[in-house]
């Protein structure tokens, strides 16, 4: 037996030697990288200035994701327009007719894409934290962090505008294997947004003269830390105003909004109304085009008939100049699915250039005209009613070519709100779903036509997507705040 064991030992020793040759000869042999695409881990573990610049460019591209869907989907809910493209019935049937939106299809949209963008921002922030100061200086890091947090705040703003009272999770910077971030209420989400913007403001104060990456041209001259701060403050003002109506915050929020506005790029000159920051689109290779710039002869997006019908008249009898500028008759009218109540007869020209559809037309993020109206709203409720009315008139006259408002400081709040909402509706038409969001803010959902004449239904919020409910062990159309 000894002999046997000896031989076996010899055999196994031989095999072991061979094995060691095999194993030893290949240090790193098994560490096969993925050369097909950049690896996320490479960005977070070995960040460099260049990689971060690419990721930052991705943040601006990511911020743009879903903006078109946001405009037409929320615009459909608020009866600004309708998507009659082709045979995709859910796109017009669901926002107009479903008594309860469902968390798949139309109702489940404007969620996952936004959170993918938020994940992107969090990954960027992780990598930024890790990069050496030799690559990116502390001042540049502060600038970068400020830009990322400002975009993150903007992303959460888009989320909560659609889900409103259902709330949303904000603690999502956790590994995918970790428990899901819990839902928090609307006011907390706005608080979170304001916190992000304020921390970005502080970071911008510590920033140098420039960002360590290229900011898209849609940001115009707001592409240095000092000018970017004006955008940050504009968004902070918007968040404060939205929070004010959404919760019991009231006057303090409006006061904070006014403070933020003073640091923003606000100007009340009509010539400056278009000043602001925009998302770029283009027909370039791998870029995204502006699909909302729909040619008059195409059959995709139409303006709701009420938009033209509800317009006030200028002194000469012509419609509100904003309607004349933004809506025109379609050359190819459309009645889809036999729903004669929602004919496609009017087209938006919001994104036209020189009277023609322009797939490279930018889409505004926030601009001066909105800031003026935000100031009007904040001033009215914070006590500066005269200033409020002056700003309303600045827009009424400057953009709508209408006569000054009949509302006075003695008028009830309801009269002012009606005037405010009219101007916000036409000034921001087909830009950010304002009509629906404002109707909900001021509890005036009845002002939004269900659909003329009968049978329609206007949803108050978009539901939580089915997959989100399922992953939380909840049934469809869940309310995670009150499961």
């Amino acid at each position: 037996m000894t002999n046997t064991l000896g031989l076996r030992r010899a055999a196994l020793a031989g095999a072991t030697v061979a094995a060691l040759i095999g194993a030893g000869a290949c240090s790193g042999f098994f560490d096969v990288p993925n050369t097909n695409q950049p690896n996320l881990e490479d960005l977070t573990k070995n960040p460099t200035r260049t990689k971060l610049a690419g990721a930052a460019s991705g943040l601006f591209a990511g911020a743009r994701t879903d903006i078109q869907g946001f405009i037409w989907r929320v615009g459909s809910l608020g009866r600004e327009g309708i998507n009659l493209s082709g045979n995709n019935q859910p796109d017009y049937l669901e926002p107009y007719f479903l008594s309860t939106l469902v968390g798949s299809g139309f109702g489940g949209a404007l969620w996952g894409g936004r959170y993918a963008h938020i994940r992107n921002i969090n990954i960027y922030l992780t990598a930024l934290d890790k990069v050496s100061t030799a690559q990116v200086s502390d001042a540049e890091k502060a600038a970068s962090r400020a830009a990322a947090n400002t975009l993150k705040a903007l992303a959460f703003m888009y989320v909560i505008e659609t889900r409103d009272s259902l709330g949303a999770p904000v603690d999502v910077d956790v590994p995918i294997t970790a428990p899901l971030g819990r839902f928090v209420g609307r006011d907390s989400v706005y608080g979170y947004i304001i916190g992000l913007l304020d921390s970005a403001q502080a970071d911008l104060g510590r920033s140098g003269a420039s960002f360590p990456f290229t900011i898209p041209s849609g940001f115009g001259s707001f592409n240095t830390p000092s000018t970017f701060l004006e955008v940050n403050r504009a968004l902070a003002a918007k968040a404060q105003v939205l929070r004010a109506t959404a919760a019991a915050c009231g006057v303090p929020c409006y006061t904070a909004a006014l403070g933020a506005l003073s640091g923003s790029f606000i100007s009340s000159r009509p010539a400056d109304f278009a000043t602001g920051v925009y998302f770029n689109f283009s027909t370039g290779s791998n870029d995204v085009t502006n699909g909302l710039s729909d040619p008059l002869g195409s059959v995709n997006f139409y303006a709701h008939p009420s938009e033209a019908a509800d317009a006030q008249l200028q002194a000469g009898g012509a419609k509100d100049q904003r309607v004349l500028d933004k809506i025109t008759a379609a050359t190819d009218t459309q009645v889809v699915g036999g729903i004669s109540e929602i004919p496609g007869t009017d087209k938006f020209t919001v994104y036209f250039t020189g009277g023609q559809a322009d797939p490279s037309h930018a889409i505004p993020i926030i601009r001066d005209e909105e800031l003026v109206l935000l100031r009007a709203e904040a001033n009215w409720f914070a006590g500066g009613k005269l200033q409020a009315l002056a700003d309303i008139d600045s827009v009424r006259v400057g953009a709508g070519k209408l006569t000054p408002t009949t509302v006075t400081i003695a008028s009830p709040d309801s009269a002012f709100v009606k005037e405010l909402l009219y101007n916000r509706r036409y000034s921001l038409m087909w830009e950010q779903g304002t009509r629906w969001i404002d109707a909900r803010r001021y509890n005036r959902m009845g002002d939004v036509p269900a659909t003329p004449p009968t049978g329609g239904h206007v949803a108050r919020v978009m539901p939580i997507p089915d997959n989100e409910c399922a992953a939380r062990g909840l049934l469809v159309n869940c309310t995670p705040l009150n499961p």
Partner: protein
Amino acid sequence: MVQRTSFVALALVALGAAGASGQERQITGRVTSATNGEAIAGVNVSVTGAAFAAITNADGRYTISAPSGAATLVFRRIAFKRREVSVPAGQNVADAALEADVFNLEAVVVTGQATGVERRNAAIAATNVSGQEVSAVPAPAVDRALAGRVPGAIISQNSGAPGGGTQIQIRGNNTVIGSPDPVFVVDGVIYSDASLPTGLYSVTQSGANRGSGPTQDDPVNRLADLNPNDIESIEVLRGAAASSIYGSKAANGVVIIRTNRGKAGKPQASITQRMGFFELERGPATRVFSLTDTFPYTSATIASYMVAGQLPFYDHLQEIAGERPLSYETNLNVSGGAENTRYYLSGGVIHDPGIVLNTFNNRQTLRANLDQTLSGRLSLSVNTQFTRNQTDKGFTNNDNNGASVTYAIAYIPSFVNILPAGGTYPKPVLTYKGSNPLQSAALGTNDEVVNRFTGGATLTFQAVQTERHNLRLVGAGGIDLFDQRAEVISPPELYYEARLANPGTSTLANGHSRQWNWNVNAIHTYAPSSAAFKATASAGVQVEDRELETSRATAHGLLPGQSNIDLGAVFGDPFEFNQTERTLAFYAQEELLTLRERLLLSAGVRAERSSVFGDINKYYAFPKASASYRFPGLLGEGSELKLRGAYGETGNQPLFGQKFTTLSSTVIDNTVGTVITGTAGAPDIKPERVKELEAGFDATLWNGRATVEVTGYTRHTHDLLLLATPAPSTGYGQRIINGGVFWNEGIEIGAGLTPIQRKDLTWVFRTSFTSLKNRVQSLPVPDVCLPPGPAAPVCGFTPPNAGFGKAYGQFFIQQGRPITQIIGTDTVAGTCATTCQNYDRYLGQANPRFRWSFVNDVSYKRLAFSMLWDWQYGGVEQNQTLSLYDCNGLAPDQATPAGRARYDSCNLWSVAAPFVQSTTFLKLREASLSADLPERWANWIGARTARITVTGRNLLLFTDYFGYDPEESNFGQQAVTRNIDLGPYPPMRSFFFSITAGF
């Protein structure tokens, strides 16, 4: 490989051990065939209870050392039954006559990289198919020729296209998104069976560039590059205990192919010339219209097609797939050698034109196998193969652009003429996207060329050789390289191209595959002087490296008459993907044969690390254990019963890239940036793990004239690779995870009978039976639980390539349900008078109740006749070819109420049930009739022997299935989502006449 090494080793032993001990004697003798008395070379001669062995030379003679007392010699050789001869002390001559082994009872069953056991002892189910069985009736590829010959394997053709495209499923469905393919090992070299798309989808627009498009190109799986005529035997390792010798990628079984080798002796040559043709086997009939028909065309429309007062009738299927061009094949092989050098050389040429115009397969193969004895202890064998394989499959399968000819004819009513007149193709009005499929077939190109080299070598060193001990060291390795270049050209003058913004499409696709593997083994056999047992211990290491690079690019708006991709107006769909998998394995096992060679106990383990695992430093262990016991003579004289049982674990590796979370590129304002993709990788990913218990018995009766092998197994696949749907607030749409359990359980029966065995007449009958059931035992919750409605969540998900929506039927992986279930929309009875209320229901499962095949070989004097029938019962297929005809109102019975109901199912109600059809069929897969010509006739052409053969494949098919063949698979090789039929290349029947001359 194992057989070869053992031959060589044993030969060495004989040489090396001669005169080693004074206690021994020499026995000599001659081995002949019991049938014709001819000498048999290459017979293994061994002494029971001792480690001596020898091998017979070209004259059948051998010399072996033996103990001085009484001994028992055992004579074994492939294709012959083993024979034991008692040699009393003092007798030094022992001759033996061996009988033919028609049921391969004497094969050696692989138990490791360099070990094997005799089949009579094997504790695992193993199937051994001889090369003669797979090459007798020409098949496009080896795998298709295995159909009906391997219990436990369901082998289906993806389409009828020339050049192959076949899937093998062994022991059920063991994965969803992992690889569905078995491991193929040719002479010790791991042989790539990759299926690389040609880029046809860029023309048919069947799916996205990085999505389902390429999978719908009906690619050839590259096993097609082997020449079936070179194959000596194929061993199929089905169970986990058997296949675990390939560890983490053997969950779908292992197919070990050995090619022919030279034998010492006078050179022998054989030449085979085949000629024949293919024809349409089966296809959808089309509707014959009359002027009274009202749908889908008005009577007025139909009447407008009248010619000379008659409504014409054209059978478009015959027009596109009615070719019967001449096909031919030539094979030549030469083998021979001296004692120390043996060779096998072969060359083969095939030209198989298809039944669709301009489709074909041309394959040229060269093989050189060499066995060299270097010294008394060292031997080397080398195998090389070169293949050039060119295929043009034309434009078929799913389509969204009008290119696929089989798709387009489902849109063209029979009264529309599409035949060319004076070189001009009519532009049909009633068609799909402007297509004239005859023009598409005439002008389109979907061509791929593969150049492939496979080479391997085995070096065997006989380290120790005594009466009690035998220690061998075996090193083996090889490389498998191929380049594939494909070109899809859809010229601008094609009518469907002309409607596009940039007519004319050209796609260039390249693939480079590079695989190598080597292993080093030590095998020690110990036989104590008491002869109480024989123990074989082996250990080794194996390294595998597999690299595959694929790239494609497409140009649209081609210059007329041009095809280069730089001659287009718009460049699109660029694609490049490179993947590498590297694996290192250590393994060890012990086999103990005892109780007069009746009991075999075996246990082993293989530990692997791989670059595709999340933790590249971690070893995953795959253990196995098995036992068998023989009862000789239990069932009468010359009978034997063996009971066996085995437990084993094996795996399926994650696919390259599944562990990575990657970034994709994006552009804003002319600046490129990175964003996350929607899929979260699994940094901790591990292999899927199959745990299987199998048990069975093998019985041999009637002196080997009857044999039966019954195996039952139950296998659970754990840690499935899954695409889970996380909460979208995580930022990801999909997440790769390990989780869930699949369960497969089945029974496999292989049986053979020789009812007549006379000098002039023999009749051999074989049958194999396969049946399994399976279920999704668990799925991770809640990650992949999708709520279909307000009821409790249904835990399940739609696998990739599941079909075309529930209105047509689709696969759905659901906890507690059969893995391959197909669900679809149905309507609540009675609701369709107003508005249909729809619900989803189970429509069947792809997995059939059973597959049962029957082979009869009858030979009478010089004539031999063979038939293989294959019967599948149960199972369903998504017959989307039928849905095409039905949706367009062109099925032959469309004017009847039943036909009208199916038309409405598609167009009004979205009801799927009519389009999910049973796959029950009975098929005469193969038949052949051959005659050995008298020797004097052979001598006229200078040959020693001559044989003529008439063969046919896919001769008869009995089924209720509509249209083509119920084996079709639109998405090609798939784990679960097979059984989708959507305008495939029509199935072909073949007839060949061949003549073989031996020199």
